[in-house]
């Protein structure tokens, strides 16, 4: 069952990749995108592949659930994969409201990156500690992920808006920040690339090190240590000697991964720039030339409107119910909880700015980008860096 499950996920992943190519084709092949009632052949194939991929991933989810005996949303790999699936699902729903394949061209790569990122974490089926043995937990986590996924669609639409509206002929603050977003997406590819390469060749090295309390311990690296742990002493013969040693309060191993990802992302990004000879956002511009600005703006706003209640229900209401049952208090100011609150406050501010201050169009698109950054921060940094009750420790 577990093998079947991983195969289904793999199939889904490949299908998403192929679907993205077809989405690209559908834009190239079609002249008038505002004719929203008809999708051309490329687009139809792309949507079909997306749906088949989604069903395949649903198969992964169900079979893994059966194998594990609990809903597979209990560690970093499982949760992040589910988020990717929800993103695809949210796209499918929004597609059938607005019928624009361009949204697919921007959403699917994000979903693919999310799933690829997820796969870099340990994929073993893990048992649940007592606090996690609750169906409220599963309802909470899945609803929250679906809400975040719908909100992420507004990011994709916002990105389309920005790519279209920002003048790329001369560099400005706007071109810079939009390019930062593109670079960040490339860094994720960088992370996936270095992680896969080093785990592909089975890279390992061990260090003796001393933590901040003066205890000695062994730390194992799966990438060559650019930043070594405090008082590092290389144990592996022929291992890579760290370039710099970190003080004890910094997690040198995680920092090392971040540096490697940035390096790989930087190299990749430079290569892309060398080939296309302009900003990535500038290269994407022709793709969006036929879409109307207020149409993507509306999609972006609409996804926030649909996503906000779902997010509230999942990330706050169900979370509180579970916390009340598991920990006897519905709110405990745990970092993960606080970041859910922050996300919620942010989107509340977003809605008010739009409604009352008339922040439409570009401002709203930037807000959608920031919202997605907050969601990703909550998913990645809070889980891995700011340890709390929720952090999937170690994995």
């Amino acid at each position, binding site marked *: 069952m577990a093998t079947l499950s991983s195969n289904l996920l793999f199939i889904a992943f490949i299908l998403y990749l192929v679907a993205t190519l077809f989405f690209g084709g559908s834009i190239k092949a079609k002249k008038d995108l505002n004719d929203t009632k008809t999708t051309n052949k490329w687009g139809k194939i792309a949507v079909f592949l997306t749906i088949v991929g989604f069903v395949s991933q649903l198969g992964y989810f169900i079979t893994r659930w059966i194998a594990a005996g609990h809903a597979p949303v209990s560690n970093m790999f499982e949760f992040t994969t589910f988020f990717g699936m929800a993103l695809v699902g949210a796209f499918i729903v929004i597609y059938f409201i607005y019928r624009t394949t361009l949204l697919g061209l921007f959403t699917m790569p994000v979903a693919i990156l999310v799933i690829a990122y997820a796969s870099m974490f340990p994929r073993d089926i893990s048992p649940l500690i007592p606090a996690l043995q609750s169906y409220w937990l599963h309802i909470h986590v899945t609803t929250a992920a679906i809400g975040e996924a719908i909100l992420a669609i507004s990011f994709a639409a916002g990105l389309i808006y920005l790519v279209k509206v920002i003048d790329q002929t001369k560099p400005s603050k706007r071109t810079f920040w939009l390019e930062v977003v593109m670079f960040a997406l490339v860094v994720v590819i960088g992370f996936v690339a270095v992680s896969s390469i080093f785990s592909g060749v089975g890279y390992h090295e061990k260090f003796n090190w001393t933590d901040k309390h003066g205890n000695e311990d062994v730390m194992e690296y799966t990438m060559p240590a650019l930043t070594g742990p405090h008082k590092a002493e290389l144990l592996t013969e022929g291992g890579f000697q760290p370039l710099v040693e970190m003080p004890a*309060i910094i997690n040198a191993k995680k920092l090392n991964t971040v540096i490697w990802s940035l390096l790989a992302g930087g190299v990749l990004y430079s290569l892309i720039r060398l080939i296309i000879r302009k900003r990535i956002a500038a290269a994407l511009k022709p793709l969006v030339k036929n879409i109307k600005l207020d149409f993507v703006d*509306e999609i972006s706003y609409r996804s926030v409107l649909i996503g906000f*209640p779902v997010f509230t229900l999942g990330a706050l209401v169900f979370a509180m119910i579970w916390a009340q049952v598991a920990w006897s208090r519905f709110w405990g100011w745990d970092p993960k909880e606080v970041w859910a609150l922050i996300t919620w406050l942010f989107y509340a501010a977003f809605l008010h700015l739009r*409604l009352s201050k008339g922040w439409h169009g570009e401002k709203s698109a930037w807000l959608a980008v920031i919202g997605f950054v907050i969601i990703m921060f909550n998913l990645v940094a809070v889980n891995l860096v700011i340890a709390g009750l929720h952090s999937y420790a170690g994995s």
Partner: protein
Amino acid sequence: MKDVKCECGHVNPHGTVLCEACGKILDEEENKNHLLDMRYEGSARRSQTYNKTIIDKIWNFFSSVKVGVWLIVITLIASILGTILPQEMYIDLPPEVYYQQEYGWFGKLYYQLGFHDLYGSWWYLLLIALIGISLVICSLDRVVPLYKALKAQRVTRHEGFLKRQRIFGVNHHIDDNDLAIVKQHLLQKHYHVREENGDLLAEKGRFSRWGPYVNHVGLIIFLFGGMLRFVPGMYVNENLWIREGETAVVPETGEQFYLQNNQFILQHYDKDKNKTFEKALERAGDVVKNYQSNVVLYKRSGKKIPGETPKLKKVKEYKVRVNHPLTFDGYSVYQASFRSEMNAMTFALTNKKTKKPVGELKINLLNPKEKYDLGNGYTVEILNYFPDFEFAKNGEPSTKSRVPNNPAFVFRMFTPEKPKGETSFVAIRQTIEPFGNNTYKMAFKGIDTKNVSGLIVRKDSSLWVIILGGILFMIGVVQGAYWNHRRIWVQHKNGEVWIAAHTNKNWYGLKREIERVLENTKLDLPKDQFQNEQTDKEGA
């Protein structure tokens, strides 16, 4: 202040921008705009009308969405600060030590700024209170005039009103048949259609306009529920430790309820039995599967008489596990933690030379006997007992607490060889013979441990208020987000048919709906004037 009478005859309250009935522009300022600002139907909001007294100023301050958004953003940023380092409740050292020790100067600063208890700080609570006030005033400022304006609206609208709607179109050919078809379609689409002098007003989803106010009321109730916690008696949160086999009174129940802990169970996942988890368990080591206390709940029957053991009536047996609290009478008992405690120690009175034990004794550490008779003339007396032994500052043996964490004894051993007895001080891994060499010793044989369940007793009478607030909030957001208020006007003006439409959100959906409504008629689709304006600006 005077009310304003419109040319249509409707009397509007002072400050009205658009006549509530016909929509004629009453405020010259608004005349300058190409499209009308329809947000509150141009109704007379207190905050836009009065600005004289202090009360006006306070009202206007809090009713401003700009202020509301600032409050939300400041709260958001403050909340971020609190997640940089762990909050006080998640650390197990005194904060004045912890932050500096773990995070150096930064930690010290964090602590000095009071960020270690950020969410309990007065200014954080103040921020939330301000949001609450803003919510109340902001909602009141808008909901009443909005309600009145929507109620007073008439079917026939002023030309200026129709022309300045975002969606607007003019048809020169009039065909009454077309109008009948349009009406038919509108009814099919569940519009509420009103007709006056051959003019149509089709409206649906007006209730969604109340969504924000419903959700704000929900939020206010939620915040109010949170405040109730500070009212004495509304909120109970006590730790309760019960040893296996013992019964304890449940705190804060007025000694009404008693809980007996029969057994504490700790289970781990077994990687040989759970093949699915084998790999994960190899990586992670021991993983706990279950914490459980098997308890019996009793209720006292009859009056409480001091000094007498109360009569208890069994209420129920329950297995308290994480995620499965025991609930009764508004109280909930949660499995929170456990510890293992020494319960009894066994010694053998042994002849040091022959190494032959002459008898064994088991000492109950919670309630040791003074004297243990081992028969054949062997007895052991306990002269002194230190359950939680330490050497006090003056060098004397003493005890830190009454919990047997580190028991130590002063024994006097009476044997046929030494009928006067020998004294021995015995602690864990330590024996002192204060009066020289003894013939006998108390040889350590074993320890019995007992588990102590750590339970939390919780009663939260404010919970239902919070639940009510949460439900209302959810209803409100869904109401405001998943439905929209759409209006379509089809009216005769100057021998033409004018079509105008407005929605509070989802224009795309409205436009598609108008397409359907006008199907099979010769009427032209009205234009989106906002989009035209935009494309003008883009110059494309």
